[in-house]
């Protein structure tokens, strides 16, 4: 059994709109914040793993080093849809876990346009959208919610309550893009984007970056950094598992279940041991289905979990105390590491007004995918060292 792997530095830029900054500058800012958090320099890093989706061909990792120090270390740029940042972190984890390096840097960064992701046109000029269903991300995740409605009778109001909860949480997070209470009536009455997700039930396209310093146990001890270190108890990734309807509806359920089950097994813990979760609430309907996918409630019980406040601040297992993607914002490549940052804050006891008391174990989840392409899911289990 190889030695444990730790996070010794982690931070994120506030998520927002940075039209006057380059993607590399944002990534570099997060990298420097994480290095400062650990008290280390870029010259201490043996490799860089950079998650970015929308400029995957632009060598963003190299550009970041151009900003903060071209030390010539190996750079791996990862693009894996909304799991790009989680994938980058996991590559760094692997390199350290495998004994190749003792200190590596993982950065996730994205600059986003506004409005709906993607565009309607195709190479031959044909516009599929509206003719062959819909390719928009809200439509894809609304169908997932409607599947839950079909199976369990989950209501529009229950989906909307998730947005109310996460927006409430965001009022305690100065790094969230939107920090505003949204009463249930306002969420339900806001513009319908794709039934049952209204505008306030969709994540916000923002710019941002997050970074983490990953260290071997030997190095953590050598540097005397165990005091604030976070142990990575599990790091798991899955891709599209076969599902009979896969050509018609993108599966985010089984792919998440497979990753979560593998992560629980690796960590030697169960869902009942997890005290807080940052999961991929790209839409309110997505958060609903992931309660069951991550095993924090039984099949069909997610709606009730929302009603009872079990996943709200102060509840049995708070979910998305950062405000989630719904209010913090969702810069695709940054999200996977930003989720790790939020859990790390709580495990270190540094989460301020939204702190979960005596937090010992937390879980992060990101899942990405597109209709007709496939999915990627990354789950991490973190523990206070």
């Amino acid at each position, binding site marked *: 059994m190889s030695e444990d792997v730790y996070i010794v530095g982690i931070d994120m830029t506030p998520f927002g709109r940075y039209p006057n900054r380059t993607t590399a500058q944002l990534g570099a800012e997060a990298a420097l914040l994480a290095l400062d958090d650990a008290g280390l320099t870029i010259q201490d890093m043996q490799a860089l793993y950079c998650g970015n989706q929308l400029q995957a061909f632009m060598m963003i990792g190299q550009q970041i080093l151009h900003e903060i120090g071209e030390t010539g270390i190996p750079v791996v740029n990862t693009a894996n849809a909304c799991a790009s940042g989680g994938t980058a972190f996991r590559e760094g984890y692997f390199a350290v876990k495998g004994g190749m390096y003792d200190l590596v840097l993982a950065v996730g960064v994205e600059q986003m346009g506004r409005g*709906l992701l*993607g*565009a*309607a046109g195709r190479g*031959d*000029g*044909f*516009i*599929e*959208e*509206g*003719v*062959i*269903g*819909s390719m*928009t991300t*809200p*439509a894809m995740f*609304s*169908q997932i*919610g*409607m*599947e839950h409605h*079909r199976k369990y009778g989950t209501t529009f109001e229950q989906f909307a309550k998730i947005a109310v909860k996460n927006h409430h949480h965001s009022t305690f997070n100065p790094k969230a893009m939107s920090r505003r209470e949204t009463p249930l009536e306002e969420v339900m009455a806001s*513009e*319908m*984007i*794709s*039934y*049952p997700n209204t505008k306030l039930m969709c994540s916000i396209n923002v710019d941002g970056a997050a970074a983490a310093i990953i260290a071997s146990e030997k190095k953590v001890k050598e540097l005397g950094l165990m005091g604030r270190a976070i142990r990575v108890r599990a790091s798991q990734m899955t891709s599209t598992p*076969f599902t*009979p*309807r*896969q*050509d*018609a*509806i993108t599966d985010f359920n089984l792919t998440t279940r497979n990753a979560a089950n593998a992560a629980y097994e690796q960590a030697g813990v169960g869902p009942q041991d997890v005290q807080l979760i940052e999961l991929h609430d790209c839409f309110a309907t997505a958060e609903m289905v992931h309660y069951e996918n991550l095993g924090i409630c039984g099949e069909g019980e997610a709606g009730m979990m929302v009603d009872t406040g079990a996943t709200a601040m102060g509840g049995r297992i708070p979910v998305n105390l950062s405000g989630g993607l719904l209010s913090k914002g969702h810069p695709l490549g940054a999200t996977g590491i930003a989720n790790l940052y939020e859990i790390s804050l709580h495990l270190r006891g540094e989460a301020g007004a939204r702190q979960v008391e005596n937090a010992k174990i937390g879980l992060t989840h990101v899942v990405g995918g597109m*209709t007709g392409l496939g999915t990627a899911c990354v789950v991490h289990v973190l523990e206070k060292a």
Partner: protein
Amino acid sequence: MASDFSGFLPAAPVIRIGDDGRPFIAGSRCSNCGNTFPGERMACSACCRRDTIEAVRLGTKGKLYNYTIVHRSYPGVKVPFVAAIVDLDEGGSLRGTLLEAEPDPAKLPPDMPVDVVFRDTGQTGPEGKPFVSYFFVPAQPAQAQGEA
């Protein structure tokens, strides 16, 4: 409505136009595990066997498995519309647009029978050729079916 789509362009790779001008959805069926898919495969997505995949035409009868009503889409796309997931009676599932049904959750019951129909999309490609696509419509009573 004309059923001869000779000279049309298929709006998606899974749509084929037969020698008789009648469109159909090309699919694959695995004789090992029984799964049916739209389109072609080099091997079975489910069981990974390479020698058990056969080309089939997907059926035109199905049931509404799931949907969303799209109210905001890309610029220029007419909304609202029903983006549906349909399970075909003879195997396979398709995503597509459900026409001739009110975009109202109260009027879209689970497992509502639907027909797969082919229509001119109103869009044209290179050289002005029109695109034909499949759509879903609420199933017509059997005796009223005059065309495919």
